[in-house]
């Protein structure tokens, strides 16, 4: 029952009354209550309702209803009883029928007596007729309710709606309105200058305040807790109080202005719109519909948020970005989703007309005006390729770089620079002969032939020649320089003899002949492909160790299987398959090893089988769980079936993947177990954390219980290695020391360290170079879901896969690809088809 101000908005609950038919008011059988109601309705609805002491009587329609039901007699009786209980009435509250010629003033004077002062008369008329003197005269016969007049001259009226509520005039322009039940009330006094003061009380803190309404319409409200506010006729408000948040102002237009302790100024309007201004120059405005306009000194401070929640901003290059609340986002004119359907590249152009591509590995590729393409890597490598094949690479961080220019005949000249002496050299490659010639900053010259022969001529007049068979001839000014070393087949023969003896003892007779046949064929391949005798001998030494170990993590029978599998791959290095596992990534690394450096793989397999762990070249110890060392259903065959994974490849897969995942932060451990039949497509592969618990991911499914069907996700264990390009590359680099064996389209790349190409010509050039420099097989990133590898049409779907490139026929333009899916997948592929597959 407090009077006004924001604090009181909820203190007098609005009545929820049904709308009644006003026509009943035309009936002559009404009390003046109806007239009171008519005025009360007007007053209640008026903005100035705080000054109306009768506002709690309700609306016109409300009071009409009250009059008609319950019955008039009941109401009157209640009023009379109430008045009588007060015990001071000289004239009781009663119904009265207006007589002809009577006015509000004449009725007031008659009821109050001749000695009634003018302010009593005025107040009486105001209580009875709502708006006091000057009101239209009531119609004759109209029923009105007359207040009780007390002996002291005051008069009062009991609300027929709530007999606990009374209105009493005390004289001197003062009314007392109270509710005996709710203990609420107020005294309203009108001064001669027109100032109205209202002192309220009640059980709630907000009920106890003083409202002063000045003649000019301004108001002041003071609460007992020290808070208060003033309201000006134009709507301006000033609030105060002991707390910081109590002190704010509202502008004349209705805006609320708050100052925060940090200097932030917040302006809010009644329609819900807001303005936030920070001391540092940032700010934002929020419209009633929720849309936001933000500004500030930094690029990221400036953005818009549409009413639907879409955030729109422009980056420093003038490119528009958008981000929707449902996860969709846009760059330039492109739209993307973050639910796995993210495109491989984002094309955009700046406001100067330059074209950019943001690649999935976060590299930025810029197409320049002269047709050259510049690529900016995360590691700050900057590579620019011109249409004529010229390539320039530099890195401001390392200071190293090179400029390579084609010679127009399939070769190139290349100038390298850097901060270290060995980084400064020139290189010339003859595309016709396959000979590579380099000279460094000290004058040391190196010539490499495609048959693996090498000649080194040092600036101190020393040097050597290494023949493809490994034999070397050294010369120089000093005696120690002049020597010959013959790397003949002695070491091979010796190590083979030892291995044969062990095989005769350990390998079952039925398998022995095939085992030895594989070794014979391997030695022939080693000579044919210029594998050094040392490489062959080291391989045999490891295999002997594998078969003869007395105490090992892997059982003797399984080590025999391992050795037989290994011998099979030494002979058939192109038939290295991943089987039913997601391990194409490192199976290609293994295929390269069987082709070029089998001794490294032999050491990995042997050490792991004996010790259950393996130590990488950098000293990192890779732990393998016992379950992963067991040959599974697919890996128990000797020789391995076409397309199946062999036990040897299983172990190599497990070690190589762990060599990547155990280096992550936090480390993840890759394990091979049996597949879970309840998870269709499961391969039994798991990634677990340091606590041994499976690492989980989200699997998407369509829920048809909703309309439309909704995409939902379920937690499932990660069941694949999840290796990135850079991790695959590093595994190979640590194992073989090679750095340039992994080729991938720059559009597909998702990591650094790999050799990236942009055009079919660049892929062609790189394959020619690798073939001529005897560096094949290469690992190539492709799309496994589309032709020629999958059944999908080019460009329709994207599926990461890698294959081994074994050869390239420049004349026919066909590339020999060894896929890890078995011999039907190994094929010659037109370089155009391969390129187009690899960029999608």
């Amino acid at each position: 029952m407090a009077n006004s101000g924001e604090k009181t908005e909820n203190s007098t609950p609005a009545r929820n009354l049904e709308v009644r038919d006003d026509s009943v008011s035309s009936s002559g059988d009404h009390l003046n209550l109806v007239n009171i109601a008519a005025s009360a309705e007007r007053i209640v609805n008026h903005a100035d309702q705080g000054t109306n002491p009768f506002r709690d009587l309700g609306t016109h329609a409300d009071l009409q209803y009250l009059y008609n039901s319950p019955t008039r007699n009941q109401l009157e009786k209640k009023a009379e009883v109430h008045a009588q209980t007060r015990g001071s009435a000289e004239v009781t509250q009663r119904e009265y029928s207006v007589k002809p010629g009577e006015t509000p003033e004449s009725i007031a004077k008659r009821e109050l007596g001749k000695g009634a002062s003018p302010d009593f008369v005025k107040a009486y008329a105001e209580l009875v007729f709502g708006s006091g003197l000057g009101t239209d005269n009531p119609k004759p016969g109209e029923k009105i309710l007359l207040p009780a007049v007390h002996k002291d001259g005051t008069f009062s009226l009991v609300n027929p709606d709530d007999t606990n509520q009374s209105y009493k005039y005390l004289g001197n322009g003062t009314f007392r309105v109270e509710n005996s039940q709710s203990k609420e009330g107020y005294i309203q006094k009108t001064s001669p200058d027109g100032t109205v003061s209202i002192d309220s009380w009640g059980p709630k803190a907000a009920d106890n305040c003083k409202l002063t309404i000045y003649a000019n319409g301004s108001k002041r409200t003071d609460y007992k807790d020290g808070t208060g506010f003033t309201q000006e006729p134009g709507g301006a408000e000033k609030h105060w109080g002991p707390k910081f948040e109590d002190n704010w102002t509202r502008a004349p237009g209705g805006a609320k202005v708050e100052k925060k302790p940090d200097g932030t100024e917040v302006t809010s309007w009644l329609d819900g719109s807001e303005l936030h201004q920070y001391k540092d120059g940032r700010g934002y405005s929020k419209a009633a519909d929720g849309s936001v306009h933000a500004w500030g000194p930094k690029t990221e401070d400036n953005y818009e948020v549409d009413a639907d929640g879409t955030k729109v901003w422009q980056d420093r290059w003038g490119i528009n970005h958008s981000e929707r609340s449902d996860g969709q986002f846009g760059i330039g004119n492109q739209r993307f989703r973050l639910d796995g359907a993210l495109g491989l590249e984002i094309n955009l152009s700046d406001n100067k007309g330059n074209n950019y591509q943001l690649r999935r590995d976060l590299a930025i590729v810029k197409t320049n005006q002269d047709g050259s393409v510049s690529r900016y890597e995360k590691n700050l490598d900057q590579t620019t390729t011109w249409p004529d094949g010229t390539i320039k690479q530099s890195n401001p961080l390392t200071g190293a770089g090179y400029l390579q220019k084609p010679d127009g005949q399939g070769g190139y000249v290349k100038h390298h620079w850097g901060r270290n002496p060995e980084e400064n050299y020139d290189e010339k490659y003859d595309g016709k002969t396959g000979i590579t010639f380099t000279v460094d900053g000290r004058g040391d010259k190196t010539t490499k032939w495609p048959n693996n022969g090498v000649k080194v001529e040092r600036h101190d007049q020393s040097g050597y020649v290494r023949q493809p068979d490994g034999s070397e001839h050294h010369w120089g000014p000093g005696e120690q320089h002049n020597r010959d070393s013959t790397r003949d087949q002695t070491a091979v023969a010796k190590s083979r003899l030892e291995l044969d003896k062990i095989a005769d003892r350990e390998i079952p007779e039925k398998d022995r002949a095939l085992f030895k046949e594989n070794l014979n064929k391997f030695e022939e391949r080693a000579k044919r492909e210029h594998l050094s005798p040392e490489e062959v001998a080291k391989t045999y030494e490891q295999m002997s160790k594998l078969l003869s170990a007395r105490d090992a993590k892997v059982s003797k029978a399984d080590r025999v299987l391992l050795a037989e599998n290994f011998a099979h791959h030494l002979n058939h290095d192109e038939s290295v398959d991943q089987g039913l596992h997601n391990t194409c990534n490192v199976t290609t690394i293994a295929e390269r090893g069987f082709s070029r450096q089998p001794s490294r793989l032999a050491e990995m397999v042997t050490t792991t089988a004996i010790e259950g762990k393996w130590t990488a070249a950098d000293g990192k110890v890779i732990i393998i769980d016992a379950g992963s060392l067991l040959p599974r259903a697919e890996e128990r065959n000797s020789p391995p079936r076409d397309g199946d994974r062999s036990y040897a490849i299983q172990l190599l897969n497990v070690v190589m993947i762990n060599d990547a995942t155990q280096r992550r932060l936090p480390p993840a451990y890759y394990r091979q177990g049996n597949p879970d039949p309840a998870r269709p497509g499961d391969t039994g592969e798991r990634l677990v954390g340091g606590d041994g618990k499976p690492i989980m991911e989200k699997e998407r499914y369509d829920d048809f219980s909703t309309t439309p069907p909704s995409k939902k996700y379920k937690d499932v264990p990660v069941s694949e290695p999840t290796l990135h390009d850079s991790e695959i590359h590093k595994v190979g680099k640590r194992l073989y020391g090679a750095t340039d064996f992994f080729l991938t389209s720059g559009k597909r790349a998702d990591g650094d360290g790999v050799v990236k190409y942009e055009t079919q010509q660049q892929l062609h050039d790189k394959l020619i170079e690798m073939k001529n420099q005897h560096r094949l097989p290469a690992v190539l990133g492709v799309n496994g879901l589309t032709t020629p590898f999958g059944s999908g049409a080019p460009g329709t779907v994207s599926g990461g896969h890698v294959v081994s490139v074994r050869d390239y026929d420049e004349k026919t333009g066909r590339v020999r690809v060894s896929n890890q899916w078995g011999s039907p997948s190994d094929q010659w592929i037109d370089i155009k088809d391969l390129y187009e597959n690899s960029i999608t």
Partner: protein
Amino acid sequence: MTKEKDAHRDVSHTPGLMVGDFNTLQIMGRAETAKANAEKFTFLPLPAGSVVGEISVPSNWLRLQEGDHTRTPRLTLRPSINDSTLICVNKHRDLPESTASNTFKTLMARGLSPSESKVIYSEGAKSGEFERKVVTALDAVLGTTLVGDNQLSNPYKSPDPRAPIFHLEKMELKNLNGKIVLAVDGHFGQVNADGTVKTDAAGKPMQSSYTGVFAPKDSRAWGIEEIYMLSGDKEDFQKNKAIFNRMLNSVSWQHGP
């Protein structure tokens, strides 16, 4: 074939099981059959390269994401996300010409009329080395690491971790909508998320019932598609078998028989 247009066709009117139809209608209760016939089904076209051209599936079952690996795309359906029952149309990787494919090719060459079947192996019935060899030879067709890893092809015995993960109960050749398929019944051992064997309160290994068919893409039997139902609850398995059989009967093959 206008598959796209029919992709979401309501096929609640599709006839249900018919007497003499494929599989074990006679062992199912009438109530389950009636429920299956009342279930609303939707036609789904499968991707090019699949042996199955179209199949109708329960409209309200959840569909899980197809495999993201090129060789084994699949469609998986479950009544609800945590239900132990699933039905899967699973494309196996393409096989090279092999003992398995040649064995299947030989079996297919036998020919079967629509109502005829030929039992290859049945648990409890007398079987010998020949049956074992045939089943073993088919392991790659059945999936080397799943149904193909069974008690006939894998000599290890539990609790050796290399023991077979599938127990074969019955294998027979049948004619399904004009194509000769291998029908298999049996059960898998259940495994936990970390790959260990799942046991019940009494420490007994838990099992999942399995029924499925293996259909060759063509007469070379290099491409195999598996349509199967698996359930960790025997009652659910029986209850949903009618729905599974209704799915099987709706299959139209992508390529000729």
